[in-house]
């Protein structure tokens, strides 16, 4: 099991000009670990991260889009796996931060914890490639081997637990002025 912040730091160290769509706790940590105008955190409703990301990926096929989704979030929008597989954006990397709980809402377990295969759901929906990582060194090796450059859509299930705590900044996550700044930065 990886520590979430270590897992995210490994991604941040390899980030170039990718758009990163992040939700809930992963978003709260990501904005500190990899502060960047191309962080999109304006989700609006639980479960919607991958769908915002699909719009971005279809609208900007020249940019890689990485989603830091939650396991509880994905369970609220499972149909999005089929939608994404059908739209088949090659620039789409769908990471699931699997912690087994609704961490933001009191850390209650997700239904059928540890029995649901998110990679299996994605394959069944039509994702051509899926990965699962529970060990930090394996995750880092895959990143070094070019996972971020592979053709998508790809689902990457990252099995993790909370690590270091980061201050919450809901204004940065949800304020429209940051979304408009994102839009301007992406248009450059």
């Amino acid at each position: 099991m990886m520590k979430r912040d270590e897992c995210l730091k490994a991604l941040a160290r390899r980030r170039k000009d990718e758009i990163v769509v992040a939700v809930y706790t992963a978003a709260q940590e990501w904005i500190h670990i990899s502060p960047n105008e191309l962080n999109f955190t304006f989700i609006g409703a639980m479960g919607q991260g991958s769908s915002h990301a699909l719009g971005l990926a279809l609208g900007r096929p020249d940019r890689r889009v990485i989603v830091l989704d939650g396991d509880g979030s994905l369970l609220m929008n499972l149909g999005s796996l089929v939608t994404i597989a059908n739209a088949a954006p090659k620039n789409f990397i769908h990471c699931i931060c699997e912690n087994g709980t609704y961490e933001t809402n009191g850390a209650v377990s997700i239904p059928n914890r540890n029995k649901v295969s998110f990679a299996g759901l994605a394959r069944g929906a039509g994702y051509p490639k899926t990965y699962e990582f529970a060990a930090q060194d394996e995750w880092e090796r895959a990143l070094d081997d070019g996972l971020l450059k592979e053709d998508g859509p790809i689902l990457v299930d990252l099995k993790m637990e909370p690590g270091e705590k980061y201050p919450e900044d809901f204004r940065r996550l949800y304020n429209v002025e940051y979304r408009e700044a994102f839009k301007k930065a992406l248009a450059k």
Partner: protein
Amino acid sequence: MESQIKAADIIREIKRAGIRFIVALPDRVTSERLLKPMLADPEFRVVQVCKEDEGMSICSGLYAAGHRALLLIQYTGLLDSLNAMRGVAIEGSNPICFMVGLLGKEPGVRPTQAKRYGIRVVEPVLDAMQIEHELIETENDSAKIVPAVERAYERLAPVVMMIGREPAR
């Protein structure tokens, strides 16, 4: 009774509004004469979704990427997606343009006067959420489409264009 709006006029006005992405779920009011022609039209990219709320978020992502989009759904899906309407469209200040089939509304009858409960509540629900809406049903209503889309993008707010009956060929 005023003459029925033509499907080709609706499609023409959607294009004139600068929309090229159509995000859609099928609806009996719009499938045959709007969605199927759009799927066959190389000027449109149609993204088929499994649920209406994800469609709103796809439109949001497209807006952030600099594109205009239309979400083509049925009124039942609109009612099912009110939380996304709140969070993604209103609180997120997203100019999401809905085209919503009112399946079962009687031709020439205001939605609030329809026999079906589900249709009667659509406009009051939108009013309660402070969402602008237009009825698109007769020939003259095609002129409402471009201004409605333009207002949405000016105000960064959603607009709902209700298709009151199946458009004519």
